[in-house]
């Protein structure tokens, strides 16, 4: 299997890496993901959406952890519904769950090495070499021999991220990877993800629009199980072009209004007569898009 990995690494995948059509997943009567279709190639894709929009369920499906009830899915050109193809996808996949819950009795090095074992890396020396390299990439070499339970929340999150990165995956699925990271660590995360995006596809979920603007080349906005908008962060900000303004009073024509400072309100919606439009941000575009599609 190491041969497969080497071949895959030398021949960087091109074209479509993820394609889905009509993906649906229900829990009881609740449709968490509802007829989702998407086509993704190389790069970093951010999935934005409010809590309960179905982001985590969609990411778990893309990570082969959850089977969709309906629809067709192709990951790295393979159909994960077939056990053999699914195993092959998992060899080339890295996954960071929303709540990783790693066993605290391991050290970061033991955990990453253990995940490498689960990823079928049998050569102990090579495994350790790679484990140290990914721990270095997430800035954890200083604490790699400490118990995970003794580390801070942000460090534990980075141990899970390092575990997802082991084996140079071509498909990286990260559910809220920046949770618990300070600004400096977020910058480090950006460079780690940029490196992965050169060889494959990174899909990450977040509800932080600033993160999407900083990290992603493409954005999918999810709401109530559906993808209601897709495009680049600039295009998302562009949705609010001429439809965002600031004032110090409530505005009847605004779809959404929020306080931005002492007495100042920002609004998205139909620009009232006489108001001058503000420079739109990804935040404005996101709020407008999720409101318009409801």
């Amino acid at each position: 299997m190491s041969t497969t990995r080497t071949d895959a690494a030398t021949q960087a995948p091109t074209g479509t890496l993820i394609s889905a059509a009509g993906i649906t997943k229900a829990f009881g009567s609740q449709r968490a993901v509802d007829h989702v279709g998407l086509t993704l190639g190389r790069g970093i894709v951010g999935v934005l959406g409010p809590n309960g929009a179905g982001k985590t369920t969609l990411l778990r499906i893309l990570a082969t952890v959850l089977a969709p009830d309906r629809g067709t899915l192709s990951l790295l050109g393979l159909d994960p519904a077939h056990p053999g193809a699914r195993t092959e996808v998992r060899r080339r996949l890295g996954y960071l769950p929303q709540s990783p819950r790693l066993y605290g009795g391991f050290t970061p090095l033991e955990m990453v090495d253990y995940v490498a074992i689960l990823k079928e890396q049998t050569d102990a020396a090579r495994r350790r070499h790679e484990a140290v390299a990914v721990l270095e990439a997430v800035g954890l070499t200083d604490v790699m021999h400490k118990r995970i339970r003794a580390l801070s929340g942000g460090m534990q999150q980075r141990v899970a991220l390092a575990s997802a990165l082991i084996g140079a995956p071509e498909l990286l699925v990260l559910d809220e990877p920046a949770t618990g990271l300070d600004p400096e660590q977020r910058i480090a995360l950006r460079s780690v993800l940029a490196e992965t995006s050169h060889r494959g596809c990174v899909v990450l979920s977040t509800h932080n629009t600033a993160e999407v603007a900083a990290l992603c080349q493409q954005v999918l906005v999810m709401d109530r199980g559906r993808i209601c908008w897709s495009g680049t962060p600039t295009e998302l900000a562009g949705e609010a072009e001429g439809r965002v303004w600031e004032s110090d009073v409530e505005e009847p024509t605004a779809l959404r209004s929020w306080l931005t400072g002492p007495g100042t309100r920002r609004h998205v919606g139909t620009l009232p007569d006489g108001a001058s439009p503000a420079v739109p941000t990804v935040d404005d575009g996101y709020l407008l898009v999720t409101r318009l599609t409801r």
Partner: protein
Amino acid sequence: MTQTWHADEEALRAWADGSAAPVPAASLEAHLLRCDECRRRMAALAPATPGSDVVRRWDALADRIDRPRSNPLLRLGLATPGLRAAWLTSILLLLTLPVVVSVLDVRLPVFMALAPVAPLAAVALAYGRHAEPAGELALATPTAGLRVVAARAVLVALPAVPVGVGVALLLGLPTAIALGWLLPGAALAALVALSGTTRLDPSVVAATLGSLWAVAVSWPAASRRVPADVVSHLVASAPAQLTALVVALAAIALTVARRDTVAYRRTA
């Protein structure tokens, strides 16, 4: 780590150029593993050129320093407190049987009722969510599913075999009975493994099967309908053993056939 002594420069130089005798070299390497100060001095003394002997030896040393402290097999099988508790419980259960039998002077087939429960519990715990040190992250790896569960179950259950047989012989039970619990134990454990491929909870199935087995084996003697050792001999008889073997093999075959459901359609 704080060291009370440091290697002299001559010893460091001899190690770096490869002229140190094997015993002093080994001693110095052991010291370098623990002494940051001497590693720093060594690095200054022997500048690294790629591919050189010093770099190769340095890499080997760094590899030993960075190596995870615990064995991969133990991390897979006995890493989490839940798994260790399962392993210890099954061993302790078997080890305390002679005490229970002699102190309480029970005339029930206690051994045959309890011994097969040990592997059964091990398999049930191997399926448990808390058995996996990497949590949900592990579900997206190629080993996820039956492969890792089976490896874990075997690692936890296997030590119960020699302990169980040893305890039976210690109790003075006939060899047929000392070995007679193994196949029923394997059959029960395989049924629990099979339940892991369905929507049933393996721990509930294990508790139910274990209780049924214990009651079925001890009840006839407890109600004084038959002499105490008749049931044990019946379980150890050829037809019962053959039945257990068939059940075990059938359950294993079905589990393997349905392995796809373990970590994809079922648990997630």
